């Protein structure tokens, strides 16, 4: 049974990534992030959720619910939008572990 899932697991992990959006030069303004899919590594094409870009829309989030809005060009977001994509391989580094508290996550004993 495990072998049946292995090829899909491998391909899924190869395609998976995390995308973050922040304001250039304003890290204190916070960042937004979500998961994404690498459509083509050679072209560097990535598809991710649009929700993380809502704070950057020049016309505000209402533009998303306009009846005729199905596509918005890249310049719909402000010039200060700063996007980053991160993908595997990963390491369970101690540095990563100590950052858990930032989000308020902890590991309560069950």
């Amino acid at each position, binding site marked *: 049974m495990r072998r049946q899932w292995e090829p899909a697991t491998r391909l899924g992990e190869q395609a998976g990534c995390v995308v*973050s959006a922040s304001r250039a030069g304003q890290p204190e303004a916070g960042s937004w992030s979500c998961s994404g899919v690498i459509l*083509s590594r050679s072209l560097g094409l990535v598809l*991710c959720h649009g929700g993380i870009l809502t704070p950057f829309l020049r016309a505000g989030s209402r533009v998303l619910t306009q009846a005729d809005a199905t596509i918005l060009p890249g310049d719909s977001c402000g010039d200060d939008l700063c996007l980053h994509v991160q993908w595997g391989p990963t390491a369970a580094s101690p540095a990563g572990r100590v950052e858990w508290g930032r989000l308020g996550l902890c590991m309560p004993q069950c």
Partner: protein
Amino acid sequence: AGLEPSPPARHRSRPLESPHPADLLLLLSCPDFRAHFACLFGSGSEAAEQWRFSSAAREEEVSEDEEEDQLRALGWFALLRVRHGLEEEADMRGPAVAVVPLGALSKGTPLLACGTPFGSFCPDIFLNTLSRGVLSNTAGPLLLTDARCLPGTEGGGVFTVRPAGALVALVAAPLCWKAHEWVGLTLLCAAAPLLRAARDALRSLRPSTASLAALLPPELGAPWALPLPEPGLPWVAAAVLVECGTVWGSGVVMAPRLVVTCRHVAPCKMARVLVCPTIPKSSKIWGHVVFATQETSPYDIAVVSLEKELEGVHVPVPTEHFHEGEAVSVVGFGVFGQACGPSVTSGILSAVVRVDDTPVMLQTTCAVHGGSSGGPLFSTSSGDLLGIVASNTRDNNTGATYPHLNFSIPITVLQPALQRYSQTGDLGGLQELDHVAEPVRVVWRLQRPLAETPRSKL
């Protein structure tokens, strides 16, 4: 079978790549997804107020503006292009993703969700976390899976197992809440229409991006791509929607003119019942309740005789044995009712409760929601019918409902009586369900078995 050799060390022992800068090419949404979303979740109506898709827990403070923004952006996705230099080209090599065409997968198809819980919070730990499930329901490009996803996995890919790793959809909302209850399903947007929209937009927006349109991943079934996945599971069609007055629920076809459901769906003997099959182009059929257990019976069962035969429905084979831990599927009209076809949820047979070595209750880990009562519980591998779903679990102290702990009536309890009724019209076997032994009643009341009464020493 023996122990398998240890798998080779995974790449998590190597350090995580630094984040790469990227540019936004476009934001895109699928109009069909938005239309089906509005229809299913009833935006603007009373039903919409019952639904929430917030990633935050209900106790958490989320401003109305924030929640409204989340809802507006729910069906929107972003196409990005990573900036990378020549020195990074080797790292960027790898197969392009293949995409499953819309409508090519049937309910119950195994899926693999791959996302990063909590986004960029701690990718060293959470990057590309996997979750297994099945395609639970579809409404155009709006798909639902019971693969459990967490906040931050929005935008994560959902892939097929066979063919391996073909992209089915992206996570639109990992958590759904209805009337403050976690539904246990993840809302997805099919990838194929999104990529078609991206292709069209890239061609029309700017000449510089037009060449990218032809390089977006192909859909499966195209001459150069992988073959389409296998056809669906026939037993899903054995589930029917049962309407009795203002009450509705699920049912299972046991013979072309015989449907079994729950007493609390069709409680009154001789009551008129409308049965809606799920196979395409089949019409609704009227029937009437020929038998319903008494309120005092622990077995919550009603039997419906139809005025006409259901055509083209796969009549399931009842099992004779139960295997705890085996993969099972529940098919039912929970959550969405008549708004779309039945949902399939997957899990395992978590317990078989026996009285005197006879199975009297089944428990599963499948997600079961209100409206699934009367629906079938199947063995995923054989397709054999294991039982009839009777309820999920509610904690009366906290009011919390647990969809992943549910109770079914073993089909072995019903099968001899149903067979007798089918062959002779004799209800005697079914009437015996009103007179079951006290230990069985104790089980269904979720009580401890009574201790043996101490004998008097006098």
